[in-house]
């Protein structure tokens, strides 16, 4: 499975470089590859016109799509394993709604004029901070509620209760959603349009700076998540079982939640809210290759990257020269496939 996905990945990335409203043949893009990878390499004069389109628009966009897709899918795999709940996805700890609220606040209060820091707009920074803040609140509340709600449960678990965290996450999501609606209510038409389009996800803001930020935050996060694969496997047995197997349960929880928060806040900040990838891709892979997190996390990341790049290609292609919100496409291509698999298999590792 992993080698299959590894073969498909460069193919869809190449596809991502080839597709767009400007006509570029496969061959043209192929001949541009050397100059895209090595910036010093000379460019064929015939291709001067398409070079900036491929290099400045499609490359960062495709790369960001892959990175965000991979990050979301792997975060989803980790959250489902950690919460032992098939409905868990990266947004369950409140990070997505927090980021969404942060972005709305940035749109309403600051507007689009401020456009400076590292080439990142105020929306990106607002979303990032909002996402992290929401997780910190969820985490603190869940830890504080520990003694009363989780009384009688495992004594070794000094950290947070999974059930409480889920509930607090839902509450914070509702609260952030309400605040978001209130902001949308006072916003004028133009601001409202920006908030709602942003909430549908979009990779059209991709540029080199955003890719760099993604690379510096999402990739290390994925490595840390992957290194926790043993603990996640043990946690599938239950928290006390994991504890007796030598897993530091509360440390693992805290680590995973913070790392997922960081990765998801970054991806929401860079590409808007893209649903579905984080929820469904890990399930898909779990059905195909089983619940072992060592393989599951790597394959989820690869498949998530592939799905989002493909979805973005379709988003650009279907109503070209205009484009669809990418979140709509991920759901439309992913959901039927997922339902098909669910019908073929009755129950698997998480149920």
């Amino acid at each position, binding site marked *: 499975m992993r080698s299959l996905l590894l073969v498909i990945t460069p193919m869809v990335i190449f596809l991502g470089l080839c597709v*767009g*409203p*400007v*006509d570029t043949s496969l061959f043209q893009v192929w001949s541009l590859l050397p100059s895209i990878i090595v910036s010093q390499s000379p460019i064929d004069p015939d291709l001067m*016109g398409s070079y*900036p*389109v491929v290099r*400045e*628009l*499609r490359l960062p966009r495709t790369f960001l799509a892959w990175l965000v897709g991979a990050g979301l899918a792997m975060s989803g795999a980790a959250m489902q394993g950690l919460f032992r709940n098939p409905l868990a996805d990266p947004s369950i700890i409140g990070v997505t709604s927090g980021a969404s609220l942060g972005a709305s606040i940035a749109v309403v209060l600051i507007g*689009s*004029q*401020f*456009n400076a820091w590292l080439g990142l*707009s105020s*929306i990106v920074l607002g979303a990032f901070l909002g996402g992290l803040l929401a997780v910190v609140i969820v985490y603190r509340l869940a830890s504080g509620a520990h003694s009363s709600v989780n009384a009688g449960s495992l004594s070794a678990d000094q950290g947070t209760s999974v059930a409480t965290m889920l509930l607090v996450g839902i509450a914070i999501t509702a609260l952030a959603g309400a605040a978001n609606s209130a902001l949308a*209510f006072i916003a*004028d*038409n*133009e601001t409202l*349009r*920006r908030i709602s*389009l*942003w909430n549908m996800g*979009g990779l*059209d*803001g991709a540029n080199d700076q955003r890719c760099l930020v993604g690379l510096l935050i999402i990739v290390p996060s994925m490595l840390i998540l992957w290194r926790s694969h043993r603990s996640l496997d043990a946690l599938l047995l239950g928290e006390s079982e994991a504890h007796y197997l030598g897993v530091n349960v509360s440390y693992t929880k805290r680590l995973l939640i913070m790392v997922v928060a960081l990765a998801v806040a970054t991806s929401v900040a860079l590409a808007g809210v893209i649903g579905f990838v984080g929820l469904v891709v890990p399930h898909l892979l779990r059905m195909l290759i089983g619940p072992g997190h060592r393989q599951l996390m790597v394959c989820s990341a690869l498949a998530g990257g592939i799905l989002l790049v493909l979805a973005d290609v379709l988003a*650009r292609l279907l*109503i*070209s*020269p*205009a*484009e*669809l*919100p990418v979140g709509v496409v991920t759901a439309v291509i992913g959901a039927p496939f997922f339902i098909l698999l669910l019908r073929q298999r009755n129950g698997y590792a998480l149920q």
Partner: protein
Amino acid sequence: MWLVKRIKWPLLSVLFCLACPFSFARSIFLIDDLGAEVLLSQPAKSIVLLGPNLVESAFAIAAADTIIGVSEYSDYPLAAKKIPRVASYNTINYEQILASKPDLIVIWASGFGADKIQKLRDLGLTVFASEPQTLADIGQLLRTLGILTGHVLLAEQAATDYEEKLAQLARQYRQQRPVSVFYQIGHQPMQTLNGQHIVSDVIRLCGGINVFAEQPEIAPKVTIEAVIAVNPEVIMAGVSDQKKPAWFDDWYTWPMITAVKKNQLFIVNSNTMVRHAPRILEGAKQLCHFLDQVRSSVEVNVE
């Protein structure tokens, strides 16, 4: 027979409104833009206008003294800002409207939606749903407001004046060389407007071609690459405060677009471009003027 249909029989409505003071004992019967019957026993003395374009139009026919409530963003002319707000851009304060007992509510239909119009009617209020679409519809809107408020002659004057100016612009630009225009709204995400939108009508009036006119959505989301692919001669960003936004200079990264190469990038005031009110001719003049600049610079290049 007395049905006043929009666009199709503009003349009929004029005849009708001239006749009404005599033959119908000042009672007014109109069909609104959504096909509903609107009956008033006499011209409305107190009206609520839900839509900034309606307020502008009412001021244009000197019916300002009849307005007792408006919706948010009714900011033109300045005097309109002092009228009580009874609705946001998409929600209505029903209690406040009921308390003010208006004779009539004129509402921008697609801005508020059929449900809200029905609710106002269910509350026993008289509602005229307005849905002007083209530049030509604005003259009709002025006349309709004239009938509803009893300012028939002033409305006729304003409408004729508007139509003459419109016709003059049309004559002036009909023969001009077509110029392809990309009308930009916002930055990330970037949107434009398709051929159904009145902005596209204004571009057409000035002898321009909206490069995304054929898109099915009214406000398609587009990308820089799409703009490169359609290669417009002019890029025009509609902004509400007429200040050049920081992102507008990002276009200079893309000299392969004709508009960028020739430095034909303009900022227009979106409030004078998107509202169905006589002031749209100001926006049209500005836009036509920009396209003229582009045409003359092309001639210079040819020499």
